[in-house]
């Protein structure tokens, strides 16, 4: 057994990891889909509902003040976590998907016209594609794809090349939407450089940080991105809570997203006026318990230490890459080097369908995902309908990766004769 100081330190914080699945200890390797929750997050939800529950901003009584404080303090701590100087730039949503839809409808649709272009990449998750298709169709704009590098099997596969971007950045481009980390290839994109290039031409950039937030430091001020979106549930927090960071200049250009309570200043019979940001974009009763859970999760991640997390993930990824190299019937997609990627690894076992691989792994207690992982454009580009994906979290151990590779033998036994 190798030593994994981080995993052994944190595993006890996650009660679900004690579960057995099909008589095997759970090896949870689907962290790109959602992460497990530490006790401090579960406790914060419990504590909110057992001691502070009430609606925010609409009462003068003690509980309502407590709930409001929890909600707004949550906003402060989340702003701090991603390096935003002002919590007024933080809008709460249901997740990455809703954050991106918010930008697409509250900003893009009002700022795009026929002939304008939106640059997206071939590796985007459907939630960073479909909202732009909808905004484009509504405004007469068009989507332009920044392709990924093609050479299958070469060490540079699945990267975005800045020279390609240079060509795409024309005057008609009004937005660039790009993921910081691919949820299939694991590729880490050079976001700072991308933002810089786009900004030289005055083009705003939206960063999908859904996969990045639990894997690397995020600093919106340093990046200078215009929008950044992520989900609480992928960073050890609860489901149902997401974040949209928007720069002041962009916030000023945005119309409301949904109408309702909390987002208004004055309501007249025929029309109304809007509250200031961020309330302007948060209609209805907000997810207070979830915000408190997310704040607890981010505090937990900070305590563990992002640099520790990166080190641990690099170790696991390096080990997995070495194991992949042992098998000629495994095709791994994405960069083959830990410099360009994180611990999200998608692959196929030759002549066995990903569903069948995932099912056999589950029979040994190993949780991985099979499918197109909401990236049909990317899978088309890779020339496969689906893949198997393993993705690491802070509690994963090298031994779990080894279990996966051993269990692949069972899949070979069952399906290949």
């Amino acid at each position, binding site marked *: 057994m190798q030593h994994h100081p981080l995993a052994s330190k944190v595993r006890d914080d996650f009660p679900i990891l004690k579960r057995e699945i099909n008589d095997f200890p759970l090896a949870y390797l689907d962290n790109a889909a959602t992460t497990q929750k530490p006790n401090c997050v579960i406790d914060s939800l419990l504590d909110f509902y057992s001691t502070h529950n009430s609606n925010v901003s609409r009462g003068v009584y003690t509980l309502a003040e407590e709930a409001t404080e929890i909600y707004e303090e949550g906003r402060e701590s989340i702003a701090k976590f991603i390096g935003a100087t002002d919590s007024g730039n933080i809008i709460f949503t249901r997740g990455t998907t809703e954050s991106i839809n918010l930008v697409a409808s509250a900003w893009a649709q009002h700022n795009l016209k026929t002939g304008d272009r939106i640059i997206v990449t071939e590796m985007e998750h459907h939630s960073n594609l479909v909202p732009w298709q909808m905004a484009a169709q509504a405004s007469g704009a068009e989507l332009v794809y920044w392709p990924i590098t093609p050479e299958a099997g070469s060490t540079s596969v699945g990267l975005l090349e800045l020279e390609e971007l240079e060509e795409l950045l024309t005057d008609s481009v009004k937005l660039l939407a790009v993921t910081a980390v691919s949820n299939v290839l694991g590729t880490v994109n050079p976001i700072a450089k991308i933002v810089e290039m786009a900004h030289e031409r005055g083009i705003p950039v939206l960063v999908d940080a859904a996969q990045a937030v639990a894997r690397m430091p995020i600093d919106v001020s340093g990046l200078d991105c215009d929008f950044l979106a992520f989900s609480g549930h992928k960073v050890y927090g609860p489901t149902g809570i997401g974040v949209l960071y928007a720069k002041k200049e962009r916030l000023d250009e945005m119309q409301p997203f949904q109408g309702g309570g909390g987002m208004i200043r004055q309501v007249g019979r025929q029309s109304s006026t809007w509250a200031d940001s961020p309330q302007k974009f948060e209609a209805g009763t907000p997810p207070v318990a979830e915000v408190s859970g997310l704040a607890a999760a981010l505090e937990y991640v900070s305590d563990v230490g992002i640099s520790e997390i990166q080190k641990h993930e690099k170790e696991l990824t390096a080990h997995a890459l070495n194991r992949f190299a042992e098998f000629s019937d495994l095709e791994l997609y994405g960069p083959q080097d830990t410099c360009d990627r994180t611990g999200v690894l998608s692959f196929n076992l030759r002549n066995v369908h990903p*569903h069948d691989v995932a*099912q056999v792994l589950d029979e040994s207690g190993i949780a991985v995902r099979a499918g197109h992982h909401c990236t049909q454009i990317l899978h088309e580009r890779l020339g496969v309908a689906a893949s198997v994906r393993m993705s690491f979290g802070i509690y994963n151990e090298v031994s779990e990766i080894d279990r996966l590779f051993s269990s692949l033998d069972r899949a070979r036994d069952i399906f290949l004769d």
Partner: protein
Amino acid sequence: MSTNSIYRDLLLDHARHPKYSGCLEHPDLKASAFNPLCGDELELTLALSGETIHDCRTQVRGCSICIASASMMSEFILERTLSEVLQISKEFSKSLRKDTEDIPETIESLRPLIDLKPHRSRIKCMRLAWDALEDCAAQHQT
């Protein structure tokens, strides 16, 4: 080794050596089915004589469960009428519901599939061929 596996011999036989795989060149009816969750695709082609299915083929890009189900369905529907197989398809659907316990005699031969129903994520895989079949039947009615 695979004693607790869902992949039993009969299913694997069908998955490895699917019956009636491919496409009919001049089908009377044709339908595709798609699983948006995983991108799997299937095309069913049928040749009729009157109301009776006298030949069929399935072209599947899918997992072993999907292929096995298509293969078993093909064996099952040959020389039966469209309305008969539509009825069977409905019974099969019903038998895949969580709360259904009794399996009608008529679909006893589909039991290896029905036994997989605790794996709810695989229901769509099993149903793909049957969805295409229902689509064919619906086309024929209109």
